[in-house]
């Protein structure tokens, strides 16, 4: 598809630099985009892709550099300007309001109707027309909170198109999608291109770059390390430019035979969410010592509740939790942790760490009142300090000292603090959710290796991840979670991500399933 596009240049960003209080997020980056072209911005997390696009979208003001649209320089000081100039952006974390309907979300900010009163009829009509025009079917009256992620993304795209966007920015569009949804997205992208929309796709996935974009800009540490025509560059080539060294893109773990009874079992778990619906609906699984069981699934199919159920943070309607043959339901979170069940939570900042507290305090969070970290009521500050010192060394956490608040640490180091805390309690069962979300390749490698080390220590590990490759590369078994149930079990080497993805969407889109 990607023939070199010779259309006129619609967007030209020249020598953009963006200085934040403590980091230089972009340094003299120049990119341009031609009409009907699709380019991707490739780079790992923190390389400055999103910053650059936020500059373009008017969320940030560039420290220096200028932006030309259709040849003439423009001052984009707010998203309003960006929208007026025909720019549209689909953010990685969707900018949708759960409690409003699709229509309301799409029209928000440029509602039809005069004298300040919204004409909902007209709005609904326009939305329907739009979704027909671009073949993006959505129910205009549905509430966002009841919609699948893929559909929410459609709404986001419609939002941009509704504002007559000629240039569409997609920030990590596939991050939360199943392979099937990814395919559909790519189809949409193609359709949009045909209708004359130019697109910039922010991603850190090499496949995607290959799959859809004509040209690729590779960013590293805020600098542009290369501009290539996609068909002329290999994945390894891109990886090099992206990370600056040869990357091992696959973790190699030696095979194991798993004998003996499971160390951890869930049987027929039912959990209700706040809306009173069954978030977990008769879920059963088991984990054997030294085994990594990966939970594949689209976000919102019960991952959160599963983690909470295991850690005893939500009420069980029904079901058994067995750990070494012992029933756990009655135990509190604390008691479960004391039984050497450790947990690396999905949202490290909200559920894993107390950002304003310092490293040493976070290191003992959850067992701060046990010897040797406390004598009776008193904290043994010295012991805590020494322990933290040791951990910081062992897990090489980059910090000025153990009394530095964790909010000052990079994402990778924050995650390392959690790993240090959880792994150092020599767990027998380990729940790991989204361990590498938003981390750069270096950190990802390190964390994967740590998880595998746990595996070698014969710890039973349950890995919940939205990143399908991660599940594939780490797991010994893959369980597909769909609408609160385990719908299928796979052995990684004996399946394909397509097949897994097919079940992740409930196996409904059967025809597209057969395509594989």
């Amino acid at each position: 598809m990607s023939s070199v596009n010779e259309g006129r240049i619609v967007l030209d960003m020249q020598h953009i630099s963006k200085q934040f209080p403590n980091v230089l997020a972009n340094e003299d980056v120049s990119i341009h985009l031609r009409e009907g072209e699709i380019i991707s911005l490739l780079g790992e997390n923190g390389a400055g892709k999103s910053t650059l696009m936020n500059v373009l979208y008017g969320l940030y003001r560039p420290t220096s550099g200028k932006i030309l649209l259709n040849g003439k320089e423009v001052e984009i000081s707010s998203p309003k300007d960006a929208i007026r100039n025909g720019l549209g952006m689909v953010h990685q974390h969707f900018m949708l309001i759960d409690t409003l309907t699709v229509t309301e979300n799409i029209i928000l900010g440029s509602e039809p109707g005069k004298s300040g009163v919204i004409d909902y009829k007209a709005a609904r009509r326009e939305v329907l027309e739009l979704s027909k025009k671009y073949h993006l079917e959505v129910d205009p009256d549905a509430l966002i909170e009841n919609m699948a992620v893929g559909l929410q993304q459609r709404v986001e795209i419609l939002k941009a198109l509704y504002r007559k966007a000629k240039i569409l920015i997609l920030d990590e569009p596939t991050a939360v999608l199943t392979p099937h949804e990814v395919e559909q997205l790519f189809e949409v992208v193609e359709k949009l291109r045909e209708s004359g929309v130019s697109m910039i796709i922010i991603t850190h996935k090499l496949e995607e770059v290959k799959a859809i974009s004509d040209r690729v800009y590779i960013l590293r540490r805020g600098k542009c390390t290369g501009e290539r025509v996609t068909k002329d560059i290999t994945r390894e080539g891109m990886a090099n430019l992206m990370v600056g060294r040869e990357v091992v893109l696959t973790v190699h773990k030696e095979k194991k035979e798993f004998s003996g009874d499971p160390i951890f079992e869930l049987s027929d778990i039912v959990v209700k969410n706040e809306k009173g619906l069954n978030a977990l609906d008769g879920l059963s699984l088991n984990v054997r010592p030294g085994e990594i069981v990966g939970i594949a699934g689209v976000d919102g199919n019960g991952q959160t509740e599963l983690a909470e159920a295991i850690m005893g943070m939500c009420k069980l309607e029904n079901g058994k939790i067995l750990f070494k043959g012992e029933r756990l339901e009655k135990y509190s979170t604390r008691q479960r942790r004391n039984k050497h069940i450790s947990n690396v939570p999905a949202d490290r900042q909200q559920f894993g760490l107390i950002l304003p507290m310092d490293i040493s305090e976070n290191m003992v969070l959850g067992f701060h009142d046990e010897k040797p970290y406390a004598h009776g009521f008193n904290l043994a500050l010295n012991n805590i300090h020494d322990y933290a010192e040791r951990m910081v060394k062992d897990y090489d956490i980059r910090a000025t000292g153990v009394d530095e608040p964790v909010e000052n640490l990079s994402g990778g180091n924050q995650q390392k603090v959690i790993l240090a805390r959880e792994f150092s309690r020599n767990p027998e069962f380990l729940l790991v959710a989204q361990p590498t979300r938003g981390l750069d390749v270096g950190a990802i490698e390190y964390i994967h290796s740590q998880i595998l080390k746990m595996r070698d220590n014969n710890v039973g590990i349950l890995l919940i991840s939205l990143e399908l490759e991660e599940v594939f590369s780490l797991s010994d078994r893959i369980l597909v979670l769909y609408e609160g149930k385990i719908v299928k079990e796979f052995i990684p080497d004996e399946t394909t991500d397509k097949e897994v993805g097919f079940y992740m969407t409930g196996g409904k889109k059967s025809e597209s399933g057969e395509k594989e």
Partner: protein
Amino acid sequence: MEITKLKPVFYTLAAISGVVGMAMYFSSIFSGIFLIIAAIVIYYIYRGLLTSYKTAKAEVYSVLKSMLIPLVGIIAAILIGAIIMVLTGYNPVRAYKALFYGGFVKNWSISVLNATPLLFTGLSVAFAFKAGLFNIGAEGQYYVGAMVATFLGITFNLPPVVSIILIFIIGGLLAAAYNFIPALLKVKTGAHEVITTMMFAHIAKYLSSIFIRGMGGDSAGSHPYVTDPIRDSNFLMKFKTIFPSANYRVHIGILIGIGMALLVSYILYRTTFGYEIRAIGQNKDAARGQGINVGKNIFIALLFAGFLSGFAGVTQVIGLDHKMFENLNAGYGWNGVSVALLAANNPIGVIFTALLWGALDAGGQYMSRTTQTPNSIVEIIKGIILFLLVAKYIWAWLGHRLKRWLGKRLQKNGGVQ
């Protein structure tokens, strides 16, 4: 390194002179201030000997620096107040002279008396804030403490020390119990404590007037406006007994308050309970995720806040009034909030902010008497101080503007910043 052997010597020296100095100062014997300074000097001398001169110096600087912003805020507020006074036709110079002279020199003993209950309510609010709770109804717990103290003060007939300790403990506990329902509702239904404690404060106020009628005079005659006085044996000790020249009204409540402040600070930063409280206050979810029992801790935190406020009532009754009045609207609860906010919820800071508030009140009275300036100007100044100190972002913002402005200037003049 035998310098370390001297550690106890230095520290005892510093401690003694510090405590004595404070006691003297609070009983408005001004030479006390010198002892306090001496204590500080001794401490830093030792630090200087122990560590290097540089680190000691750095410490001094950091201390001064931490005091800079509050100082600036206060001064700025005073300037604004001055402007207001000028605009409304009062003489700020005379007024402020009177304010400071009255507050910090002339009627210092009154400032201390004012500060005592504020110190307790301030601690109460600050502690609650640390747990992410807003104990806006400290006033109500104050009333409960006062009632208990009055009742026990009248009925108890035990050796002084024993009874006073008992009164404090029981008063505190019952005041804590008064927060039981709000705490319960907070944990069980999530009813916001701002509303519940506020309403309970109103309720306590009205209940107190029933109590007073019950506790005084003979039921036959015209009902009393105050309760009967409590037994002399239950009076809180006065400074006068230590320093004969001290003001005869100042009682040791302030020292108890400071003790409490130290205790609270210890609890917060040195104990597992305090650790959990802070963890919850800063991130409920993470605390819960790591197995800390959020509900229980919030519950205890609110009760403990009530306990502290209760002490305010107790000291006021057995220390100063020796009986309980009807129809007094001193608003210790509200001022407690201000004091806590001003101290950024730091228990040690509360000591100073409480004293500052007390001094401003006492000074305001002196000012309005001698210069006939309405002392509501003091209230306004207080409010402005609060804003300037609590909204730290204002300074960042000003600083930012200033920096850019200067930056432009310097670039114009081709200089470098």
